């Protein structure tokens, strides 16, 4: 399987601020790649480099096999983009804006645009200056989704949309993937990433700190186990792979490393396991682990 995006050792500084610090990232063709990170971690800078809007100081980025700046025009025929902060021309209607943006790409399909406006409940006849943040975002979303692109780069595309629209958005993204398109989805909405993304990359302070499928990332993480046993469980605290174990009479709570869960289960069974709740770490917990290090 080929990669739609290949980034190697990308570095970019703005004055004294280091925005990207040897960032490397692969996005495989046909996947939805979740791109997570706190504000200012470098998500938008990475995306703007991929679009050829920003020149990196060093490192390389390859998009759909091409160079982001040298091949910008050809690449942009195959890329659709939704910026995080959508600004529209105040004197143009939403419909006019969608038309100009899709026509610049050369593939405006009026039926598809009408269908998307209908789905997202967007009034196309209002002027740009009168739209709310959510509606400005819908205009950019419709213009992007109406394009038959190979790669969709979405920078927090639904941060202003309500949950109903969120569901429609997810449905549309699944449609894109079904026909073989690739999606780079920068998002703060973890539920959205969990629902859509095949692969996730976590960026912090300009570098990727973690990348992989959600399943594989969870496997490496601690499972949270709450159990009730007939007899007190002994020696839990000293077992490898067990963390924060708390025994309170017949109840025990602990975090267990993925690869040691089997041995812990044997131990619990031996103590007369009565009930057990085990859940994988949520994306939020995984993120907090990485983000937390920044403030620690």
């Amino acid at each position, binding site marked *: 399987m080929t990669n739609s995006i290949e980034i190697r050792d990308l570095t970019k500084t703005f*004055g004294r601020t280091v925005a990207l610090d040897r960032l490397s990232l692969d996005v495989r063709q046909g996947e939805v790649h979740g791109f997570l990170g706190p504000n200012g971690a470098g998500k938008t800078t990475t995306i*703007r480099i991929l679009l*050829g*809007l920003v020149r990196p100081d060093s490192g390389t980025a390859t998009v759909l096999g091409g160079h982001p700046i040298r091949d910008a025009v050809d690449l*942009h025929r195959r890329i659709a983009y939704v910026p995080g902060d*959508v*600004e529209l021309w105040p004197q143009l209607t939403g419909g006019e804006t969608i038309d100009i943006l899709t026509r610049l*790409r050369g593939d405006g399909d009026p039926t598809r645009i009408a269908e998307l406006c209908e789905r997202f409940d967007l009034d196309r006849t209002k002027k740009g200056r009168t739209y709310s943040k959510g509606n400005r975002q819908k205009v950019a979303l419709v213009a992007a989704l109406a394009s038959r692109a190979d790669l969709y780069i979405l920078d927090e595309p639904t941060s202003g949309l309500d949950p109903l629209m969120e569901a429609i958005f997810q449905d549309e993204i699944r449609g894109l993937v079904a026909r073989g398109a690739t999606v780079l989805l920068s998002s703060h909405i973890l539920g959205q990433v969990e629902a859509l993304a095949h692969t996730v990359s976590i960026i912090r302070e300009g570098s990727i700190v973690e990348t992989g499928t959600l399943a594989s990332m969870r496997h490496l993480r601690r499972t949270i186990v709450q159990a009730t046993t007939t007899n007190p469980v002994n020696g839990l605290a000293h077992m490898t792979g067990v963390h924060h174990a708390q025994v309170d009479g017949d109840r025990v709570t602990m975090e267990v490393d993925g690869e040691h869960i089997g041995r812990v289960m044997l131990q619990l069974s031996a103590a007369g396991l009565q009930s057990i709740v085990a859940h994988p770490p949520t994306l939020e917990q995984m993120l907090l682990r990485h983000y937390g290090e920044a403030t620690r």
Partner: protein
Amino acid sequence: MSETLTATGPLLRFAARRDRVKLSIWVLGLAAFVPYMMTAYKTIFATPEDLAPIVGLIANPSLTLFTGPGYGVDVAPTELTHQIIFASVYWLYLLLFTALMNILLVSRHTRLEEQTGRAEIVRASVVGRYAPLTSTVLLALIANVAVGGLIAGALIAYDSDPSSSLLLGATTGALGLVFAGVTTVTSQLSAFSSAGSGLAGAVLAASWVIRGVGDMAAGPGEHGTWLSWLSPLAWAQQTRVFHDDRWWPVGLLLATAAILIAVGFMLSARRDVGAGILQPRRGWATAPTWLRSPLTLAWRLQRTQSFWWAVGLTLASFMYGSFTGAMVDAFAELPDIFQQLMGGAEVALSGYLTLTVTMFRIMLAIFAVIAWQKVAAEEVGGRAEPVLATDVRPAAWMAGQFLVIAVVVAAIGLVAAVISGLFAGSVDGDYGLVGDAVAGAAAGLPSVLMVLALAAALHALAPRLVVFAWIPVVAGALIELFGEVMQIPDWARQISPFEHTPAMPAEEFTLLPLVVQTVVAAALLAFGLWRFSHRDIPGH
């Protein structure tokens, strides 16, 4: 290479579509200057005898500060034409506004688009690297060709020599392109459109001053000096149009425009979209302790702009002040019509001082409107909303803005008056003129506050109406500076907010007009405060 220009055509059409109203008004407004002036001349200078007084006026070396090198005005009065007067006196103002059109056009279509982030969504589409800038330059080219063509056509329609008319039109367009080029460069430097257009405006102001000083330094019978040649505005006037037509300065203008545009393109390729060549500076992590009320917030937001206006007007008062002696010497030879403007020959010194004070009054009124447009932008940009969502009352917010601008206007006016007064005093050692100049500036304050209160009242109706506050300011400037020469009727002069201000120190102090102006200003402000408290603040 050609790929870097992909989509230039569609972007040009798109830019023209967005700008169809504003740009049409600019182009037609500039072109209308010609029929307006030519019609006025036919009334004012109906016979050759009528032309006699203005010959002296134009030929006066001191006045070249406000006109030009004056080619053709030293011919025999019988040979003097309306066209020569137009080219040597009023054309400069047409050139000035054409340059302004280009600065605003280029800034609006390049840096403002990037600053708002709209350029990003365009550049992320199938659009070549140089396409947005190229389409902007082409739009400027079209606008300048239209302005030049219409001006030439209008002059020919008024029985002007076709070849000279074409030269004047072409020169106007070429000068416009120079400032399109200047703005192409300045817009690359900072990430903010106001900085880019402000820098281009400073280049225009410098060109204006250098041309004025250079031409004024020329001796009798001479037309401009080497200093003049440092200003593109002088190149335009050095075409000697309608007198001794020469086309090569047009080539100089076009070559300069081409070089500037090329530099702009080169700089644009060296930077990221949305970023400037210069890195934005960092500021303080915390607000100073005084920044805790709508009043101090208003001051914080107006501070930078106020500072640069203070610098500009201080420099201007040094410039006008340093000509005081030369002006007074030349005054005795001036024709009656100009002496009336300055209050009569016997008071040459105070007359020039009065003219200076009047000029600053107009400039401060311009500042007042620009400053209030910034206030309106606070609301339009949604930045007023979080402030008004605290326990700040709308009336207090607006009153704070008014007070800050009013104090700045008064302070800059005071500084300019003191400097001008000191220069005037140095001529005869009569430093009482400092007090006279300050009194003259103080007498002008109610008229400027009237303009400011009008802007506030318009804002209270709707922020986008603030632009109408320009009408009395522009009309007032034209009436105060050209009213006598143009013989504008008294009733029409009432639109000027400065009309009833006593022209001190040349005229006596009269209290009544100042009381009336203050009452009008207070009424407009009161209406504004009341209306603003009672209307909705539309969401962003």
